[in-house]
């Protein structure tokens, strides 16, 4: 291995690591606020990328129908309660769950997004995929929100399985790539840096800063942090844990979908690609003990580098190496966290 290759691998690792870092942040966020280990995070990666692919190919993406169906389900379940709480509540619910999906559907079917500029297509893909997050929270997690972490984990695994199956149904078994956001490339000291890599790293950095500002400065961000620290205490302060859950899932879905859209020009995305990508974000998140954002991001970056260098030395065993890494980390985490037995 010479310096050239090392730099190339390093660049690869940092680009992937940036994506893993985003996913790790989302996972930490979801776990801290809702205690859900969000295995389906990866499905949002695939859904985001493949929805964009469908839009660019001129198809109506399956995720659009999913959003319509889930919206109808949420409206049906929450409708009676909203009806009792007054007209405004009901109007809000119906607007979010029925009207919004309907408008988006009309836009996709009527306005030929195929010919739009890329950034608008990206925005459209996001407004289709992101609402799935809070919808799924409402339908799948909210009924068991107070269950043990273990039950929530099994629910997550089950949801992951269902979403992978739906992904296959929506997008087929073939993989796809999207055209790069930027064809530019730069020569830096003998190393070619593609514009897309800069997009990925730049967008990740921007998103991380945005999240930081959200959590430090905004009221909703503070409410989420309060919920993460103490659910019961937050509830006593008038913070709705249900709202916190939905908001968290909204953020997680947005981060997932955007990650997918960012890497789609670099990696071929299949309907089930998200799982492994998500799990690698996970390894990073676990390095941070599912609690610390900066450590999780650093861990994710490390995973990206480890992956790219091991793909050079032992490409067949790349996944074996990355996922075996998690075990010593788990052991170390488990030994350093004092485990307090839950009182029955």
């Amino acid at each position, binding site marked *: 291995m010479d310096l050239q290759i090392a730099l190339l691998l390093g660049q690869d690792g940092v680009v992937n690591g940036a994506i893993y870092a985003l996913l790790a942040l989302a996972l930490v966020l979801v776990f801290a606020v809702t205690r859900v*280990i969000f295995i389906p995070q990866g499905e949002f990666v695939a859904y985001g990328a493949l929805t964009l692919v469908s839009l660019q190919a001129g198809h109506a993406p399956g995720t659009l129908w999913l959003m319509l169906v889930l919206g109808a389900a949420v409206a049906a379940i929450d409708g009676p309660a909203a009806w009792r709480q007054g007209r405004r509540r009901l109007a809000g619910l119906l607007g979010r769950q029925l009207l919004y999906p309907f408008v988006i559907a009309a836009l996709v079917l009527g306005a030929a997004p195929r010919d739009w500029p890329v950034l608008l297509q990206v925005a459209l893909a996001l407004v289709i995929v992101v609402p799935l997050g809070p919808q799924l929270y409402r339908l799948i997690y909210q009924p068991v929100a107070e269950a043990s*972490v273990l039950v929530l984990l099994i629910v997550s695994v*089950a949801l992951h*399985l*269902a979403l*992978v*199956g739906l992904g296959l149904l929506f997008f087929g078994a073939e993989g796809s790539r999207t055209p790069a956001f930027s064809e530019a490339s730069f020569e830096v000291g003998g190393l070619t840096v593609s514009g897309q890599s800069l997009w990925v790293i730049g967008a990740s950095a921007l998103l991380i800063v945005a999240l930081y500002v959200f959590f430090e400065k905004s009221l909703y961000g503070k409410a989420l942090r309060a919920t993460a620290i103490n659910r019961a205490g937050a509830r006593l302060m008038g913070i709705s844990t249900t709202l916190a859950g939905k908001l968290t899932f909204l953020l997680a879905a947005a981060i997932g979908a955007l990650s997918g859209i960012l890497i789609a020009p670099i990696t071929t995305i299949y309907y089930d690609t998200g799982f492994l990508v998500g799990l690698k974000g996970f390894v990073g998140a676990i390095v941070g003990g599912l609690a610390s954002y900066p450590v999780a991001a650093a861990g994710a970056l490390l995973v990206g580098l480890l992956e790219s260098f091991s793909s050079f030395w032992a490409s067949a065993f790349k*996944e074996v190496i990355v996922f075996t890494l*998690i075990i010593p980390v*788990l052991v170390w985490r488990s030994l350093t966290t004092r485990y307090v037995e839950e009182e029955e």
Partner: protein
Amino acid sequence: MSRQRLILGVALALLALGPLVLPEFYITLLNYIGLYALVALGLVLLTGVGGLTSFGQAAFVGLGAYATAALTTATALPAWLAPLANPWGGLLAGLLLTALVALLLGLLTLRLSGHYLPLGTIAWGISLYFLFGNLEFLGGHTGISGIPPLRFGGFELRDGRHFYYLIWVVLLAAVWLTSNLLDSRAGRAIRALKGGALMAEAMGIDTGRAKMVIFLIAALFACLSGWLYAHLQRFVNPTPFGLHIGIEYLFMAVIGGAAHVWGALLGAAVITVLKQWLQDLLPQLFGATGNFEVIGFGLLMIFMLHRAREGLWPWLTRWFPASARRPASAEFAAEPLPARAVPPAGTPLLEVKDAVKQFGGLVANDRMSLGVASGEILALIGPNGAGKSTLFNLITGVDPPTSGEVRFLGERVDGRSSRAIARMGMSRTFQHVRLLPGMSVLENVALGAHLRGRHGVPAAMLHLERAEEGRLLAEAARQCARVGLGEHLHDAAGSLPLGKQRIVEIARALAADPCLLLLDEPAAGLRFLEKRSLAELLRQLRAGGMGILLVEHDMEFVMDLADRVVVMEFGKKIAAGLPREVQSDPAVIEAYLGGVD
């Protein structure tokens, strides 16, 4: 009992007649149900009973399948492996390999707490899957074909109908072994894992070992299933050993009813049939091919977790209520267990000297000293938060003291495990009741006698320890009668009122035959008459030479009963002496009633 036997008998007869009448398709289906149920059975033991969730069992199935596949198809084996180049050698090698890998993974991952463990199983589940697919000598992603059929003497099992009998005999044997195990001393130790390590260790159960045992058994069942699979299919590739199949195995156990051995079979049958049906139906419906059945599985699983977390088996058995098994008292006429020699009254049992416990900056115990002799009741009182429970934890080995020493029977015990201390003859109850609510009172109490039995898992699986088990249960029944729970032996412990549950804890502590008894608020929640009979019991125990350390808030109860009283406040001893002296001590009055500023 007889009706259950009847149902079982009919089911077995139908099972035996199956291959004679059923078409090929159903035989194949039943073969797969049997293979999957064997893996799910391991998960019932591991997850449903032991509370350890694993998504990685498919990897162990893969080890079993690949071990025999590689050995029986290899062309150039080194000489020392040559005797293993047949299905039986493959089985042996597979079991050894699986045991080794499981031991290693268990050592690494079983100490993971809470949700870290299932995440760890996902990690090694994926690693092993990619390993199967990338090792040259295992045929890569194409796999290994041409695996020879099983042979018994001259008879080759080439037909699915023949294999059917082998699969189901193995499965039923595994069900029998597992049920035997659960109904034994070793099985109670495993069931105690769900009640938390704190209680189990205090009863002298080696929880680390118990976890490893069920992890190994579950892995070996999975390996056995893989071995059968390889010789049934006569072809292996990595696909059936991936993480998604591992998840499916867990679904089988949860949907069937993870806490019941037959739940494994039910879950395997439901998932397998459903999979078959959905695999036919969905591609037609959607006009495309693919594994769409996972959508149905995922949704079904979520529905079950929302609505019926116990699984289908308890729901099914509601329609066939078993006639409750109520052993007559004559069944408990077994020869009593040997008892500990009672130290003469006045022998110092427990001595705590200058014990300090710090949690960060908080000093929970500050140079605490006290002593308990045999035939004596020492009461430890103090306001809430005074550090009484912390002191209990120091004495029983739950937490080591920061400094100072604890002696029991003349030996230093600070720093020893609570298990080791329990073995020396110290037994305790808990302030927050720690019983296994679903288990009968009798079995909960028998848990206390754990250290008085010695037969392990193999004997339990074969039910070779029935004599000892009878003596343990007889001892438990005797202790129940002694504390006045004689009529509740077969009630679920969780169904008793809280006060009675505390009494069950006392019976459990007594079943250990201790010389020192530590009681943490035993009278809380008791009614007047119950308190009086508890006091009477404690007096009897004292007269029998037992030392008792009692934490209690009920002053009347304490002052009538205790020989001496130690008062704590803010981690410090503020008074000690006879009940009368302590009651008039100004420091004590101030601690309880507040001083005048």
